[in-house]
C-alpha cells in the first residue's frame, strides 16, 4: 500500500501523478463507507447480550480498535510512512501503555493477598 508520491515539477509526469491520486480517492471513500457500516455494527452489537458487561465492552472495543486502525493506516497514511514517524510512534505506544499500566497498579495489593 503506497501513498501518492511527491509531485514532480514536470507537467507530463504530473498528469500521470494526478491519475494516481484519483485512484486513492476511491479508496478513501470506500474506507469512509466501511467506517460508517462498522459504526452501525457497534451500535447494533451493544444491544446484543454477550453474557457479561465485560464481554460487551470487549466486543465494542475490538470493533473500535479496528476502526481506529483503518483511520490511522489509510486516512493518516500510516500504512506507508517514513521510518522516523514510526519511531516516534513506537515511543508513544510504549509510554502510553506504561501510563495504563500505572492505572492497573492501583489494584496491586501485596499486603492483604
Amino acid at each position, binding site marked *: 500500500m503506497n501513498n*501518492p508520491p*511527491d*509531485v514532480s515539477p514536470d507537467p507530463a509526469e*504530473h498528469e500521470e*501523478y*494526478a491519475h494516481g*491520486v*484519483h485512484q*486513492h*480517492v476511491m479508496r*478513501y*471513500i470506500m*474506507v*469512509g463507507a466501511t*467506517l*460508517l457500516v462498522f*459504526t*452501525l455494527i*457497534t*451500535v447494533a452489537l*451493544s*444491544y446484543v*447480550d454477550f453474557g457479561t*458487561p465485560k464481554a*460487551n*465492552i470487549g466486543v*465494542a*472495543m475490538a*470493533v*473500535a480498535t479496528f*476502526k*481506529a486502525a483503518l*483511520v*490511522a493506516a489509510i*486516512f*493518516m497514511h500510516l500504512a506507508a510512512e*517514513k*521510518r*522516523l*514517524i514510526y519511531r*516516534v*510512534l513506537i*515511543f*508513544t505506544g510504549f*509510554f*502510553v501503555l506504561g*501510563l*495504563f499500566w*500505572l*492505572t492497573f497498579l*492501583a*489494584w496491586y495489593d501485596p499486603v492483604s493477598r
Partner: protein
Amino acid sequence: MEIPYTVSNRPDTGLWNAKIGIWLFLASEVMLFGGLFSAYIFLRIDAPPGHWPHGLLNVPVGTMNTAILIASSVTVVLAWAALKMRKYRAYWWYMLITILCGVIFLTVKLVYEWPDKFQHFGAYLKPAALEKYEQYLGNHHLEEKGLPLRTEITGHLHNKEALKDPNIHEYEVAVDPIYADPTNPQMDRPHFWPKHATDKIVTIEKADVERAGFFTPDHNTFFATYFTITGLHGLHVLGGVLVFIYMWLPVSKKIYQRNPEHLANRVEVSGLFWHFVDLIWIFVFPLFYLL
C-alpha cells in the same frame, strides 16, 4: 527569514518540517487523552455496583454525530487529494463541507446534548430508603435476574425551588419511563430510541436522599468523566474547525498561487490532526453512549 523545508524534505529527517512537527504533537495528544482514558477505566472499574449509569445518553444523536465526524474525515482527505491534483475549486468545496460537519458536530453537542443533560434531574437514595421506593426501583425483580440494582431515581424536577429552599422537604419528579414501569423486562436494558419522561409524578423526601441534582459534571463520576472527555474532545473539534476556516479563506489561496504544494502540506498536517480527533471519538462514542 523564510521557514525552511515546508515542501521539500529535510535531509536528516527525510520529512518536511511540519510533518514531523504534527506527529510529535499528536504523540503528546495520545498521552493527554491516554491519561483521561486511564482515569475513566480506573473510575469505572471501581464504581460500586449500580453506580455507573447506562443508557442516559441519546444514542441516535450520538450515532449521527459519529457519522458526521467520519464523513468530515473523508472530505478533508479528499480536499487534500484535490490540492494534490491542483483542483482548487474542488478543494474549496470539500473544505467547506468539512468545516460545516465540524460546526454541526459542535452545535449538536452545545445546543442539544449538553443543555438536555443540564435539565435532567436525579436523586440518589440512601441505602436504608431503597425499600421505601421499591415500587419505582424494581430492585427485587433485578435481584432475581442478577442485574445491578438501582439506587437513583431520575426524571424532570417539577419543583426546582426545592433544590435551594430548605423549607421544602421533598422533590417532585416526573420520572423517566424506567421508574414508571420498573419490573417490565423491557426496562432491564437501555433502548436505542430515548424515551421521554413520563407524566407520573413521584414525591421523593429529602430525608431519604443521599444527594440530588441536575446532570452536571458534579452529579456523579459518569458525568464528570463524560463532560471532561467530550469537553476536551469538543475543544479539539473547535480548534480543527478554526484552522480549516483559515485554510479555506482567500488568504490561503495566495499560498496556493505561490506554491500549491505548500497549501497541500498544510492541509495534510491539519488533516492528520482532524483524523486523530475522529479516532478519539471512535473510542469515546461506544464507551459513553453504548456500554
